């Protein structure tokens, strides 16, 4: 009986969204894919400024996947998933930005 109630609560807060939230997420993910494609194919702005559109669309796409599909905001109070994600992203930035920075100076040395 008590086991039942534990699972009952997990199912409720697990939530996993509704059809509506999945459809909204899907439509948004399509929009944030079409925008960079249009920018590229139609040559919006000049090529340097277009990079902002590409990276912005990718960032929004990432947020849509996290919230509408991976249900990040629905987790319980000690937000361990979010914390580990933030640590992961911190390491990503260290690796990516750090590599670019070091290799720029490496090219100067060459």
């Amino acid at each position, binding site marked *: 009986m008590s086991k039942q109630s534990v699972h009952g609560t997990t199912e409720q807060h697990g939530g996993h969204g509704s059809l509506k939230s999945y459809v909204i997420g899907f439509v948004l993910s399509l929009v944030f894919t079409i925008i*960079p494609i249009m920018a590229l194919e139609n040559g919006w702005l000049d090529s340097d400024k277009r*990079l902002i559109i590409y*990276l912005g669309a990718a960032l929004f796409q*990432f947020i849509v996947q*996290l919230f509408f*599909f991976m249900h990040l905001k629905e987790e*319980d109070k000690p937000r*361990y998933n979010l914390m580990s994600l933030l640590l*992961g992203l911190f390491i990503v930035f260290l690796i*990516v930005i750090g590599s670019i920075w070091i290799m720029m100076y490496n090219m100067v040395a060459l």
Partner: protein
Amino acid sequence: MANVNAGHHDHHPDQEELRTFAFWIYLMTDVILFATLFATYIVLQGSTDGGPGPKDLFQMNGIYASTFILLTSSFTSGLAILAMNKGNRLALMNWLGVTIFLGASFLFLEINEFIHMVSEGATIGTSAFLTAFYTLVGTHGLHVTLGMGWMIIVIMQIAKHGITPVTKRKVNIISLFWHFLDVVWIFVFTIVYVMGVN
């Protein structure tokens, strides 16, 4: 059943939830793996050694098609979760099946792209750019392949055991993995392809 104990302390997270969190931590290690491959690619992007570069090689129409296919498969794996929460076993298995089919279509396009590139003389050993390219995109493709095999096994378990707390957790985890592959592809699409031909 490890779960039986969970009833005694209602405020402790139950075992199924801990397992999902453990999988999330695995995903973060995968994030770090892909970060190193992206860093390598970004640094080596221009090192074509006189060989073909992104603009000569990438056929964007195929890439657009595979991007929309993968986005749709992320959606259908979400529909599988909805069917599961309604207790509709057949719909759950069907949506997982559709997701596998879309994943296979994605892989088919990717393999064709690689064959086309190799036929143009762009092999993994041609330049540092291509080594980084095949390693990054190939690692993502390998993840998609493993995800499909994994999904087939989960479908078999649902066919055998039905929708139980254990198979539920398994479907939730494979769906999390599939959305994660979509996230990685978004950055492959943007950084490798769109910015490559910009």
